């Protein structure tokens, strides 16, 4: 698959965050979007997902895909978990194609076993983040998009999470936004602070 981002401009309240931005996102490639706060990282992801519209330019999904809207595994900037439910339910709830036994095995790769069946509101910020990562990777998707997925993770947990994401990427593209590109050198680094 290819997502063509062409001459995209986007501004909020008169402030330009993306200015004639161009990028082709292709299968089996990884993209690490970096840059200072407010430079448009999250905005770019929202445009790719079709959650926002660009002021000018275009974001097009090229190739033969079943859905007009791409199948996406997503880690949002906030965790966006259902706080009263446990980690396993938070992952299984999103799709009928995700099975409990598989999810338990996947969660165990990033979280201690005792954290799996507690309501998510009782987990630490880092643990919630890892639940979000597993949720994004658990569903069958054409693309993985992750907005600051390593927030709240210590160095060791970050390394484990990066290895997990790499393992789960499959043949689709991976787009990550981050302030810190350490350990993400496998991807093409795009600095929005410079690019725009």
């Amino acid at each position, binding site marked *: 698959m290819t997502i063509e981002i062409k001459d995209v401009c986007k501004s909020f309240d008169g402030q330009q965050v993306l200015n004639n931005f161009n990028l082709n996102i292709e299968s089996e490639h990884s993209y690490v979007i970096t840059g200072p706060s407010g430079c448009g990282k999250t905005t770019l992801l929202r445009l790719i997902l079709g*959650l926002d519209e660009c002021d000018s330019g275009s974001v097009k999904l090229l190739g033969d895909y079943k859905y007009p809207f791409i199948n996406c595994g997503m880690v949002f900037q906030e965790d966006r978990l259902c706080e009263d439910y446990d980690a396993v339910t938070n992952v299984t*709830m*999103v799709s009928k194609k995700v099975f409990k036994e598989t999810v338990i095995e996947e969660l165990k790769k990033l979280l201690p076993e005792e954290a799996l069946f507690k309501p998510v509101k009782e987990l630490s910020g880092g643990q919630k983040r890892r639940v979000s990562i597993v949720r994004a990777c658990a569903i069958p998707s054409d693309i993985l998009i992750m907005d600051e997925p390593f927030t709240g993770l210590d160095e060791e947990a970050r390394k484990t999470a990066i290895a997990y994401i790499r393992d789960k990427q499959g043949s689709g593209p991976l787009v990550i936004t981050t302030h810190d590109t350490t350990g993400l050198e496998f991807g093409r680094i795009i600095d929005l602070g410079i690019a725009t």
Partner: protein
Amino acid sequence: MQKIVRRTIAAAAWIIIWQLVAMIIHNKILLAGPIDTVAALVSLSKTPSFWGSVWQTTGRILLGFFLGSVIGIILAYIAHEKSWVEDFLRPLVSALKSVPVASFVILLLIWFGSSNISIIICAMVVFPILYLNTLEGLKSTDVKLLEMAKVFRMPGGRRLRYIYLPQLSPFFKSAFKLAIGMSFKSGIAAEVIGQPLNTIGNGLYLSKIYLETADLFAWTIVVVLISFVCEKIITKVIDIL
């Protein structure tokens, strides 16, 4: 435990006060005491029409409550999705909220007669309560979670179960609690005015005609008990959901 004891003592104190006032007035037409009321209740419960009236009234009120709830919830969902529907329904909801039940009862008596009046009145009273509370609940649903559900293509049933219902539950709880109480009040009032045969409202009306204050209180206790039981059952069902 201490709370239950205190509440029981308070209730018992009021029953004693009621009995004392009845003894002082010493006129069963003006005020029947609790002993006379219980005696009237026992006597009424032995009559063949009593249980028929209880079932008939309860069934009709619950049917009206159910219809009003379903219509209120469905229209709230549609109004949440389409803002013009909300604007279109606003005057109707305001009218249903503010127009006295008695006015509707008389109008409906002219239109439809008395047999099913309590069903329609209950539905009309319950509808705005459920509509407004559901709409408020839907508006307060976490938009970020809804966006997450959209991105993950979460199936509709799961969105309802995991996102909407937990957020709507407190709104439903307060709405159903208020609505069930209002249903019995308005449904019985409609029966008293419309006087369909073999109903609690008709029993209350006959108590008034024959100046049987003890019967009036007995029927009132029956209504309060049924309303209380229905409220508890509905609250439990929402908790389970």
